């Protein structure tokens, strides 16, 4: 079985202008979270779309889904965890509790604030996760990446080998959970995303090509871009 796992755990601190978490801000009269869920909803391969929200926003999340997307039994809203990866573990626990968790169970994890994800990216994620066990969505880096401790340049890696991570990140859920449980507390502390769980243990995470417009709406500036994308065109 294949599940979409929408990570709506953000609290909006980087948005600055509002106490409302960024996934609840609206584009074209609809919360970003709804736009994102609706990119997964038409795909019949998903058994369930699991939305993970901070505890105090769970009720609100259910309300806005009902209000803007309509009543759907294909979406479940549950409470997220303290970190991104704990949130994913909550989703896997939910799958194990409500469905069946076996070696072939796939989760497609996605930021709730990337509503421009495409059908192709989602499909290629599913296929890559089935084939290789794990994948990450990336685009080639366009800026030169500089490595530093914060004072001076330590290294400038070859840009041709650099990619910018997006989401979805997709996994065989049981393998991801088992690997996560095997990490030490120290290893867990340095995790920035779920793919790193596997990279730390030397497991293969394949690449899926993303899109430059699959942006993450993090800052007020991103929100302006997202709003203008729905109004205007991108020229080649």
């Amino acid at each position, binding site marked *: 079985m294949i599940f979409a796992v929408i990570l709506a755990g953000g609290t909006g601190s980087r948005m600055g202008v509002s106490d409302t978490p960024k996934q609840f801000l609206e584009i074209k009269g609809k919360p970003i979270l709804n736009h994102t869920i609706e990119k997964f909803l038409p795909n019949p391969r998903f058994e369930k779309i699991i939305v993970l929200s901070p505890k105090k926003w769970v009720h609100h999340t259910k309300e806005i889904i009902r209000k803007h997307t*309509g009543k759907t039994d294909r979406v479940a809203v549950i409470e997220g965890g303290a970190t991104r990866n704990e949130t994913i573990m909550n989703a896997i626990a939910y799958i194990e509790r409500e469905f069946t968790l076996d070696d072939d169970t796939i989760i497609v994890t996605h930021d709730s604030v990337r*509503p421009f994800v495409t*059908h192709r990216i989602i*499909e290629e994620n599913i296929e890559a996760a089935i084939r290789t066990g794990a994948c990450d969505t990336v685009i080639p880096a366009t800026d030169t990446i500089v490595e530093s401790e914060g004072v001076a340049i330590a290294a400038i890696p070859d840009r041709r080998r650099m990619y910018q991570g997006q989401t979805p990140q997709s996994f065989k859920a049981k393998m991801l959970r088992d690997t996560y449980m095997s990490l030490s507390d120290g290893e867990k502390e340095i995790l920035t995303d779920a793919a790193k769980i596997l990279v730390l243990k030397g497991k293969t995470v394949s690449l899926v090509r993303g899109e430059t417009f699959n942006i993450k709406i993090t800052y007020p500036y991103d929100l302006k871009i997202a709003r203008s994308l*729905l109004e205007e065109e991108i020229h080649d």
Partner: protein
Amino acid sequence: MINTIYRLRSPRRFEIAFDELDLSSGVIVRPTHLSICNADQRYYQGTRDIRVLKEKLPMALIHEGIGQVVYDAGGSFNPGDKVVMVPNIPCEDDPYIAENYLRTSKFCGSSADGFLQEYICIEPERLVLLPEGLDPDVAAFTELVSVSVHAVTRFEQIAHARRNDIGVWGDGNLAFITSLLLKKMLPESRIHVFGISREKLSDFSFADSTYLTTDIPEDLQLDHAFECVGGNGSPIAIEQIIDLIRPEGTISILGVSEYPVPVNTRMILEKGLRMFGTSRSGKADFLRTVQLYRDDPEIPMYLSRLVGNTVEINTYPDIKAAFEIDTKKAFGKTILHWNI
């Protein structure tokens, strides 16, 4: 839902745009196989009148295509159903005028966005279920086949009943499909095809005879004729038809020409000919086309000869590459495998 649309901004230049699709209305179809038409090429290459281009662009091209139903809030279709999309969008009912001739109708890839989109939101009445096992590369250009079916249907309604010898002018895709359908739908008639390329004409193996337009037997006469040439070839094709056709025959005009075509009206009058245009098609023509596929598996088999280039569309630049490949083809259809 946010939908990604790939529009032609100006000749040879596409752009990405986003629009909001309402999941609660219409059927959401994921396009899977699309096919490029000459009409799309005229926009892409900028050979349409500059005023037309200015008025219509930016616009998503492509009006020939099939897809899979992914969501239907109304319940008419099930997820996974394979369907062909009818690009004509009638906005009124008329008891006498067919939907494809109503001036109020819209048409995808002409007066509305075409199928170069991540998802298509379409009314259930504009979808026709495809038979299981049909080659999707052939099904992709069902719209073009339905145009020929429409032409033959109109012919059946208009032409007198002596239909022993029917001529088809043209050796391109439309001529191939029209002459094939004439042979299948009117099996008693002899179908004669007239073209300029001996090589292309050799593909018309189902026809009773094929002729180079420069080498037509002097004693050949026809009851009716179909003009599937268009462009600069229209005047000479129509002239030859008027010469060869018997009195009171019908001439079906299918070829599109950007410029006015001079016609020998004196002989039209003397022979009492009926010349009528046929353009595009409607839902009924799609239904009849799909039924023909079901009833006679030889039809899709013959049509598979038209499948030329098949191009995988995984990224935005692949669309432009496919149109460029299509400009170089001599015969057949360019099929897009829509993975984007």
